[in-house]
């Protein structure tokens, strides 16, 4: 059945041929097409950084519409970090502009023999020389392109030195600091020698039924504005979560060695806001405007969000907020995933504390907890693959192999993707999400945030089980993660900000049905959308199984399985990951 068939631009970077075609007819946008394209077109076992890999950039019919925060693009390819299906979304303003240019999906095949960028101006599409941009960071690249083309309103998605140098967790970034961060999509772009995509669009997004669409948008807006977290998200964005995680006892302090961090006051949301934030920033059409612009003595930029804030402070045993903010600015410019980078630095610090690695193993860089040298110099070295950076550019799983089994035992990754800044043992829905989702160690596939709220009524409404509302219970988490994954796929296809749709639970399948129906002028039900999301989840699972995934891969790092949380409010908590995964498989109808 045809749901929405968009316009696909196929760009072969080897032959430099550009063709316009239609997307699959049975999708609903971005991720729903990207994942299907990769399963259909990619041969099994393709080397992710070879010209045979395919990079998809997708938006959807609702992107760039009046719907609040309909602002994301999804970049998908076989991941050079995990070897499984990789995809990642970025907010900001690039995605709406791509939609206004009349394109719903870009598919890049082959590889150029020199650096190029793609220029899209509505129907005009050109592959242009980018040799003068090689080596520039993401900020420099973006501003240079604005200068070159004489239009500072052009939207640019670019890679930095990390992407050029094929760092396996390199990002694609737009608006200088809005990153498609996870699973190394920037490295795939770099392997194709595609430095940037530049877009200007002017084609209107016009709903078929304007009054009905307006109502759906107003309902969504009301859900957001009436939410109990609305004001605090406006004020602090995702950095507000640090307090809660500390209270739950799941802070990853000193690389998960303790849940206690004495100097939390120095690095939490209030300190960041007081000492570094000069104004609020927003993505496209968002009334939450939860991002912030910072100044430090080292640099300035947008961010950090919780992951960079906690990753470059608490996780690395540092109480120096300014240093953390500077590291966040630096990885954004260099084009590195802040989550993977912070996790790798923190892991090295723990290895050094355990006597497994010496400073001399890492070019003499001081790896003591909170080391300024490590936080400032390692990202540079990784992005440029200088010295030890070359090894670390492979990600913690590959790097650990070089340091031996005791170093491997301390890593925190699933399927090769580094974990977020929280302890999965004390938030079991998130623990399960990290174990089973298609990307690997990742919390943002869909957010099982209901377990953080204690809101039993909401848990019953969404998954029919009040247990799902309690983070320390293992009951009901299979259903919760399944629901969160569905909502994640829906959000990645509508291209909504998941902080709003998932974390705030402000969006659901009924509302999506209204929005799609009104925009497209054909009835699309909540159940149809749910079924599409089920299908997309299955496509991603099939892709990963084809690439060698087994049920044994659906687990957490051993360090979380063989001992309880050592201290703090959740002291003694363990996680029975096998039970959780079994529950989830049952929900999915999969064999163990």
């Amino acid at each position, binding site marked *: 059945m045809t749901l929405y068939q968009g316009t696909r631009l196929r760009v072969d970077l080897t032959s430099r041929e550009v063709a316009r075609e239609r997307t699959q007819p049975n999708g609903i946008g971005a991720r729903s097409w990207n994942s299907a394209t990769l399963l259909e077109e990619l041969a099994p076992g393709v080397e992710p950084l070879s010209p045979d890999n395919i990079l998809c950039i997708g938006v959807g019919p609702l992107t760039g519409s009046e719907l609040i925060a309909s602002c994301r693009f999804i970049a998908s390819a076989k991941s050079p970090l995990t070897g499984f299906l990789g995809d990642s979304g970025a907010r900001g303003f690039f995605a709406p502009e791509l939609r206004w240019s009349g394109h719903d999906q870009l598919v890049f095949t082959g590889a150029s023999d020199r650096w190029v960028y793609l220029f899209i101006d509505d129907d005009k599409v050109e592959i242009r020389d980018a040799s003068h941009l090689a080596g520039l960071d993401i900020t420099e690249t973006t501003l240079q392109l604005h200068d070159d083309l004489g239009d*500072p309103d052009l939207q640019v998605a670019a890679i930095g030195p990390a992407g050029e140098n094929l760092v396996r967790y390199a990002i694609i970034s737009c608006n200088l600091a809005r990153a498609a961060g996870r699973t190394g999509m920037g490295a795939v772009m770099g392997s194709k020698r595609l430095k940037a995509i530049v877009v200007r669009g*002017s084609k209107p997004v016009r709903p078929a039924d304007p009054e009905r669409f307006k109502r759906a948008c107003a309902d969504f807006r009301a859900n957001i504005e009436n939410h109990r977290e609305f004001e605090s998200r406006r004020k602090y964005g995702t950095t507000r979560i640090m307090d809660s995680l500390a209270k739950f006892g799941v802070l990853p302090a000193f690389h998960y060695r303790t849940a206690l961090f004495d100097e939390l006051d120095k690095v939490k949301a209030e300190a960041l806001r007081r000492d570094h934030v000069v104004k609020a920033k927003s993505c496209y059409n968002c009334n939450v405007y939860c991002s912030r612009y910072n100044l430090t*003595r080292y640099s300035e930029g947008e961010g950090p969000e919780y992951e960079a804030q906690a990753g470059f402070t608490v996780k690395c045993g540092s109480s120096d907020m300014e240093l953390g903010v500077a590291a966040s600015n630096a990885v954004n410019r260099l084009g590195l995933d802040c989550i993977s980078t912070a996790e790798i630095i923190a892991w090295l610090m723990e290895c050094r504390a355990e006597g497994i690695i010496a400073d001399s193993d890492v070019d003499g860089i001081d790896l003591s907890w909170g080391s300024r040298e490590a936080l400032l110099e390692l990202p540079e070295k990784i992005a440029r693959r200088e010295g030890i950076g070359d090894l670390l550019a492979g990600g913690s799983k590959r790097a650990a192999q070089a340091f031996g089994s005791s170093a491997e035992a301390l890593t925190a990754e699933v399927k090769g993707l580094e974990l977020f800044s929280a302890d999965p043992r004390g938030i079991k829905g998130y623990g399960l999400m990290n174990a089973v989702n298609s990307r690997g160690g990742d919390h943002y596939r869909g957010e099982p945030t209901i377990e953080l709220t204690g809101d039993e009524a909401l848990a019953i409404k969404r998954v029919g089980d009040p247990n799902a509302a309690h983070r320390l219970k293992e009951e009901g988490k299979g259903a919760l993660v399944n629901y969160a994954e569905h909502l994640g796929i829906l959000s990645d296809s509508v291209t909504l900000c998941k902080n709003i749709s998932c974390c705030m639970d402000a969006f659901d399948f009924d509302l999506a049905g209204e929005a799609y129906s009104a925009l497209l002028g054909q009835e699309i039900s909540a159940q149809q959308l749910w079924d599409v999301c089920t299908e997309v989840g299955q496509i991603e699972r099939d892709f990963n199984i084809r690439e060698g995934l087994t049920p044994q891969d659906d687990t957490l790092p051993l360090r979380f399985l063989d001992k309880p949380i050592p201290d703090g409010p959740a002291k003694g908590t363990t996680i029975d990951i096998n039970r959780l995964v079994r529950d989830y498989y049952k929900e999915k109808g999969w064999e163990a």
Partner: protein
Amino acid sequence: MSHFLLLRFRRIYTVSVGCHATGEDRCTSVAIRMDVDYRPTGMINCDVQLCVGCRMCEVACSVAHFGAVSPALSRIRVAKLEGIGIDLAIACVGCAEKPCLQCAVDALSVGPSGQIVLEAEVCIGCEDCVIRCPIGAVGFYEGEPLFCDLCDGAPSCVDVCPTGALVNAAELAPSLAPFMELSGPSARRRADYTSTVSQPVRDSWLAGWRLGE
């Protein structure tokens, strides 16, 4: 009243906005003689400290006039100086000079609230008014210039603005004399205008920081 309305310059003012993060003057560099009494306000006014650059105003304007979303349909546009964190929504400020009125076919006149009124059947779509606006506040879509019409007294951009950065100050007619020499495409002129009028806010941010220590 926002502090932005209180800004006044009466001096030769050279602006060089760079990205201190890159250590280079890559963003823009404009030298402007600010030797007239200049107040950046009138019609729809945006407070640069409060503007978060969400572009909800563009969406609302575009929907209010065309029932569809595209920045090309909007009479208000947000200039984003991304390298220095500045955002500013710009619509017609109802300036004292009104260079747009030098219309070859006399298609433009001034309405009761200071807004520019277009006689569509007279307009030949030459884009002269678009080019003459020093701050790039005149849009152009499908052969016709787009001027802020204040939505018949209830501007949709002011209504939707989530931060209160936008206000309707139609009674004021500021001078844009210092900006008459700005050139380039509309987006370039909007950015150059923004880099000048945002300088005091930038300065206030930087006052607390001694960079490069």
